[in-house]
């Protein structure tokens, strides 16, 4: 239960950081904290008591293992969302070039 609550807490604190952010790069890193909350939730769902990692190299084929499906989802998620962070950082660099500031409150509307 603590694992689920920590995931909810990370989501809320990350969202608070996004709402009250004064710098675009700070906003992107708070988004990263929100992404981490989904990883924690997925892995917490898949964990089984007294179970081992799902690698069958040295454990017998009938051993109790944790859920590999959620691990597969989380694994690709981690790498892919890092590249999404890259796109967001590129956007914030372009926003700074365009508007001269990195403050979300001071960014104006797009001018044609």
């Amino acid at each position, binding site marked *: 239960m603590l*694992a689920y609550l920590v995931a909810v807490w990370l989501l809320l604190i990350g969202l608070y*950081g996004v709402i009250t952010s004064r*710098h675009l790069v700070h906003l992107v*890193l708070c988004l990263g904290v929100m992404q981490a909350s989904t990883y924690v939730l997925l*892995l917490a769902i898949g*964990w089984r008591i007294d179970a081992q*990692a799902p690698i069958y190299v040295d454990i017998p084929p009938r051993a109790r293992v*944790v859920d590999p499906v959620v691990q597969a989802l989380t694994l690709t998620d981690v790498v892919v969302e890092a590249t999404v962070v890259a796109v967001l*950082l590129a956007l*914030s660099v372009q926003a700074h070039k365009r508007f001269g500031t990195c403050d979300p409150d001071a960014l104006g509307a797009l001018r044609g």
Partner: protein
Amino acid sequence: MTVLQTVCLLAVAVAGTATVLTRDPLRQAVTAGGFGVTLSVLFLAFAAPDVALSQIVVAGIAVPVMVLLALAKIRTLDRAKEREQEDAP
């Protein structure tokens, strides 16, 4: 729920809060890296070595480098603008 998992979960919650509450982006790059490594220890405590490996690699190599490069670029843009404003009048 083992003691190790409880300790790791609390460490992750504290590290996440610290990352959000660090306002300066340059310092936040460091706390975000620490948060990433703490998260990978939590993944190991959850019997997920693949996920921990990719989290270590991504949060230790890829994300801090991109953040630092973006911040360096923003700083050179600021400096160029300051120099233009000095030359103008």
